[in-house]
């Protein structure tokens, strides 16, 4: 037993131990080199990690708005903030200016577009949510829906009781055609000029409808060039000047009228029967659309909405059209039109010209409306004359321009209320501008 133990020990010492030691030595030398290589790798990894971290930061920076911001974006954002300020502080068309102002902010937040990258974020990028919503503007879907709501909330009684006020609504549309000439003189192509001219109608949905058909950046002109996309500038100009109606119109109205004319009292409107109210949208639709079928999407919806209201048997539909529906569409149209004013598209020489032409259009429309009321007075008997202060209401900024007539009337005589009378040409202006849009579309579309 003892001998066996000794032999085993000797064998272990003779064969196993040296091999073990050899392996240990090899292992030790390998470990050292491995440690060295591991250290190198660690060093490399650390450097890689640091590199990747820096790369990641750089990439993050490249995708932030700060890196992609341009001066144009910042200018547009200031404009958006001014819109929001005007809406909240002075309550200038807040239902429009808040969505448009916010839309301008959204549309001008800069993002990564290098090498034509499509992050599906911007309004002009295929597949983005904003792009889908913008479809309603681009294809002219929203404006007729807005007209449906307007029809369902408009009372045509003052117009029916005194139909001659329709002519004031027609007279104010002269502004559209003079602006059309002005735009041509400034070098715009005919379809673009037509779309710009409609700003004179002072009707946002009509302006969007027409510009989406005539100046959409898609149509090709006879000389092979593509029309410019002017939807954003035209819509913004139209809505801005609509909001500024209380500022633009009064000086022109005071300039064109005498103190005596401002004191004219108009006969109170007669009571209008229900039958007349029901017949107005039906015959209004038939008579106007037979003459100008291109205005059908707008006028059809306007009179349809009004029939829902006046028929008395579709109260739920009328209620929806004048509340929920028009509110939803207003949100969509305001936000997307605002967002469409990306600096690279909006801040151009054309936009500046459009704003100048828009101001002129409003001035001419007010001038022609008030002037035509004075001309009508030359032929009307004493006691049945029109107060020319309601002439400005022919521009269809409902009901702001009628409110301006009321305010100016009260300044001349605190007991002379013109609001009811002014609503006549005001709603006639809506019809007139839609007809004018139809005519421009049929010639230039």
């Amino acid at each position: 037993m003892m001998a066996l133990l000794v032999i085993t020990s000797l064998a272990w010492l003779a064969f196993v131990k040296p091999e073990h030691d050899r392996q240990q030595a090899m292992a030790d030398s390998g470990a050292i080199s491995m440690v060295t290589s591991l250290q190198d790798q660690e060093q490399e990894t650390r450097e890689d990690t640091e590199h990747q971290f820096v790369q990641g930061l750089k990439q993050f920076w490249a995708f932030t708005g700060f890196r992609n911001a341009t001066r144009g974006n910042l200018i547009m954002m200031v404009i958006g903030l001014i819109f929001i300020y005007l809406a909240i502080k002075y309550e200038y068309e807040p239902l429009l200016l808040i969505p448009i102002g916010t839309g301008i902010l959204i549309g001008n937040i800069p993002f990564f577009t290098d090498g034509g990258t499509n992050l599906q974020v911007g309004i002009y990028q295929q597949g983005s949510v904003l792009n889908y919503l913008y479809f309603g503007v681009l294809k002219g879907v929203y404006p007729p829906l807005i007209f449906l709501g307007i029809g369902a909330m408009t009372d045509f009684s003052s117009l029916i009781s005194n139909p001659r006020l329709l002519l004031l609504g027609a007279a104010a549309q002269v502004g559209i055609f003079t602006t059309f000439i002005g735009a041509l003189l400034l070098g715009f192509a005919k379809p673009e000029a037509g779309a710009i001219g409609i700003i004179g109608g002072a009707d946002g949905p009509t302006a969007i409808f027409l510009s989406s058909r005539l100046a959409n950046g898609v149509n090709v002109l006879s000389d092979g060039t593509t029309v410019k996309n002017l939807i954003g500038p035209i819509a913004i100009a139209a809505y801005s000047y609509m909001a500024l109606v209380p500022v633009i119109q009064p000086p022109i109205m005071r300039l064109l009228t005498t103190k005596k004319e401002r004191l004219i009292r108009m006969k109170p409107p007669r009571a209008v029967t229900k039958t007349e109210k029901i017949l107005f949208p039906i015959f209004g639709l038939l008579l106007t659309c037979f003459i100008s079928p291109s205005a059908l999407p707008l006028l059809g919806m306007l009179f349809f909405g009004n029939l829902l209201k006046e028929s008395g048997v579709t109260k739920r539909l009328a209620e929806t059209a004048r509340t929920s529906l028009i509110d939803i569409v207003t949100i969509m149209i305001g936000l997307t039109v605002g967002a469409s004013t990306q600096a690279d598209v909006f801040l151009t020489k054309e936009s500046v010209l459009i704003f100048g032409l828009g101001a002129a259009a409003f001035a001419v429309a007010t001038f022609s409306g008030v002037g035509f009321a004075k001309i009508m007075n030359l032929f009307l008997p004493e006691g049945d004359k029109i107060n020319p202060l309601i002439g400005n209401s022919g521009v269809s900024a409902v009901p702001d321009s009628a409110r301006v007539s009321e305010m100016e009337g009260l300044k001349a005589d605190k007991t002379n209320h013109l609001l009811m009378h002014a609503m006549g040409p005001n709603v006639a202006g809506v019809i007139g501008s839609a007809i004018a849009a139809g005519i421009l579309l049929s010639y230039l579309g």
Partner: protein
Amino acid sequence: MNWIYLTEGAQALDQLTWTVVVVGIGIVFLSLLIVYWFFRYILTFILNFRLRNFARKKGMDPAEVQTVKTLQSGEVNAAIAMAIYQYFNELHDVESGVVTIKRISRHYSPWSSKLYNMKNL
């Protein structure tokens, strides 16, 4: 903007431009004139015709019915509507103003009477 720019633009004012302007303004006026004529004359005629028939059936003077039915001022209707509205909505304002406190007579109820319960024990 300069004069050369305007001159170039002026060349764009061709025949089509003037056609669009003249026809455009003309059609806007014509459309609204037709609506004006319709509602001023044709519809008034139809409604008057109906009123005359109505008056004839009732044996009344057509002119009187017309005055009452169509030529009435909206202000008169507004005043009537306001009066009716006030009558129905402010009826509670027409009260005697006398505040009374009525004694509530209670009949005896034995539901919690101790004596009654004692007797039932």
